[in-house]
């Protein structure tokens, strides 16, 4: 999948505002591309745009999937792709399931869509097998249950089973494990890895859990306010993060070596769409201690090393005020 200059705009009040702003990204076969960023940075909007699931938004740019521009596809044509060649695990699992249908029948329906030759009995065996693969303890029982009879974590696993049932070539997983405890999370992540290793699938993994990213991703794109601010292979991103935003995110995590310390807090919040600054760097107001003159006017993505792109020019001079104080003794606040 090659995403080129994708812009997704929503109508807020009387105007359109871009939640995804001119994003260019490639996901290869046999690759996990992670997308990280705070709440509201546009990760889900990007995922929905790729799947063609935004009906109210204005979408520009091209989505090249195996040589075809699917941005131009009709919903009918997209329906043939979705669920088979490309599938998505939704952040909100409850809304992804039909409340009036037992979950077994829902996964069966997904299977049938693309395996019309399979017998009913074989499909049932297959569905139960998938339910047990995603860690559901009594799959035969769960097969017969309605979504509301399951806990949040169980529902999430059903949605995952449904998405991988047809072994898609492109899987978009939007916060797939946020609702799950760590042992189940590890199991689900293994399944996603299998899909990549066995089927050579391309995977877009959206999450704000940087631990999951460190474990799963081949490459990582950091998104802030609708834009990609940094993209690199996973090793470079964690060993030498460059953009002030990436560094701030990594810095805010608890670290096992220092307990009970104060964690770094990124000042302020992601501005709502209609208040987003459209000129200059969007992260600027959250690092107010950096001198205005060291920022660039309209930062573009620069390739600082093969495959490592940063939308920043001041990154070399960037510092955190508290660390700076310790280092130089003069208090920058």
């Amino acid at each position, binding site marked *: 999948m090659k995403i080129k200059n994708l812009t997704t705009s929503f109508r807020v009040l009387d105007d359109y505002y871009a939640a995804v702003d001119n994003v260019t990204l490639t996901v290869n076969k046999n690759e996990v591309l992670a997308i990280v960023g705070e709440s509201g940075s546009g990760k889900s909007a990007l995922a929905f745009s790729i799947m063609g699931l935004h009906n109210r938004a204005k979408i520009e740019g091209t989505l090249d999937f195996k040589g075809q521009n699917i941005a131009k596809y009709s919903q009918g044509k997209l329906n043939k792709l979705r669920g088979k060649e490309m599938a998505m695990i939704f952040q909100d699992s409850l809304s992804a399931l039909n409340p009036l249908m037992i979950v077994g029948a829902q996964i069966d329906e997904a299977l049938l869509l693309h395996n019309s030759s399979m017998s009913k009995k074989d499909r049932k065996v297959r569905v139960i097998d998938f339910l047990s693969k995603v860690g559901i303890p009594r799959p035969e029982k769960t097969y017969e249950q309605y979504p509301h009879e399951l806990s949040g974590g169980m529902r999430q696993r059903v949605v995952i089973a449904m998405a991988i049932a047809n072994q898609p070539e492109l899987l978009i997983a939007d916060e797939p494990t946020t609702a799950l405890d*760590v042992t189940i999370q590890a199991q689900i992540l293994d399944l996603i890895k299998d899909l990549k290793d066995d089927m050579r699938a391309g995977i877009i993994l959206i999450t704000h859990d940087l*631990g999951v990213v460190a474990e799963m991703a081949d490459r990582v794109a950091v998104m802030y306010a609708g834009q990609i601010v940094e993209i690199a292979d996973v090793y470079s991103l964690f060993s030498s993060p460059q953009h002030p935003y990436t560094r701030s*995110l990594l810095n805010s995590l608890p670290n*096992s070596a220092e*307990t009970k310390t104060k964690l770094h807090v*990124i000042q302020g919040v992601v501005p709502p769409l209609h208040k987003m600054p459209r000129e200059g760097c969007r992260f600027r107001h959250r690092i107010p201690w950096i001198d205005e003159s060291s920022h660039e006017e309209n930062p573009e993505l620069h390739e600082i090393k093969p495959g490592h792109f940063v939308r920043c020019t001041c990154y070399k001079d960037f510092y955190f005020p508290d660390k700076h104080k310790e280092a130089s003794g003069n208090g920058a606040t």
Partner: protein
Amino acid sequence: MALLEVKDLKVHFPIRGGIFNTVVDQVKAVDGVNFSIEPGQTYGLVGESGSGKTTTGRAVIGLNKITSGDVLFEGHNLAKGGRKSHLNVRKDIQMIFQDPYSSLNPKKRVADIVAEPLRNFEKLTKKEERVRVEELMELVGLSTEAIFKYPHEFSGGQRQRIGIARAIALKPKLIIADEPVSALDVSVQAQVLNFMQEIQKELGLTYLFISHDLGIVRHICDHIGIMYKGRYVEQGASEDIFTNPQHIYTKRLVSAIPDLDPNRRESLTVKRQQAKKDFDELSDKFFDEEGLPYPLKPISDSHLVALPEKG
């Protein structure tokens, strides 16, 4: 003396059924839990989903009926006598809820939300109440104008602060925090965790911190209890649990924590597979015939593990 001591706590929920709607079975949500928390400490309660963490917290604060066992708060047994008889003690224990989006009444203004416990327990004039609410808002780092707003006008982190302001309004001694940051972004998470640690020092608070994020638990907890199917499998100082886990379930839990260094991926996968294999193979030894953990046995001054009689 421990601030809170929980002894052989059991909370069973009846399952009703049949034509007469009689009790046909029990969910043993909490089934014999023991722990105690020293004043000023943070005690972490972790475990798989459905293991009874929330039920334990709710039982301590009196939101779940206790089937049997004792809950001693500064020596008062909260499990005995009705709710009313412990009214004075009740205001010393408050709870922060998991979801900052649904735990605040959307129809009430912040001033009313924060003042609610004050109205229940203290008779203040309108003016005194206003002063107290404003003090609380300042304490949690929100502007005093914010009291006229409604919850939806705040971000997740700000809403969680409003929940905290409400919880500390009566100057409690113990706060039960049930997944207080799970629904929040990393940066907001950091903000709320820092803040909880600050007011802990300032007000001398004690926390019962329920979470399934072991990275966070490690960061802020002094002692940790690990629950599995309504019981404890292990308890110890933070160090004991993270550097020297003994029970197969704890080992599995600890090995499942994602690591921030991508270079350790392979070694972690190996470790994790080994922990899973041990868990599957040694289940018979570590759990009784019903698949439940054994009672805890001390293996050091601070460290207890659920091991069978024979050792």
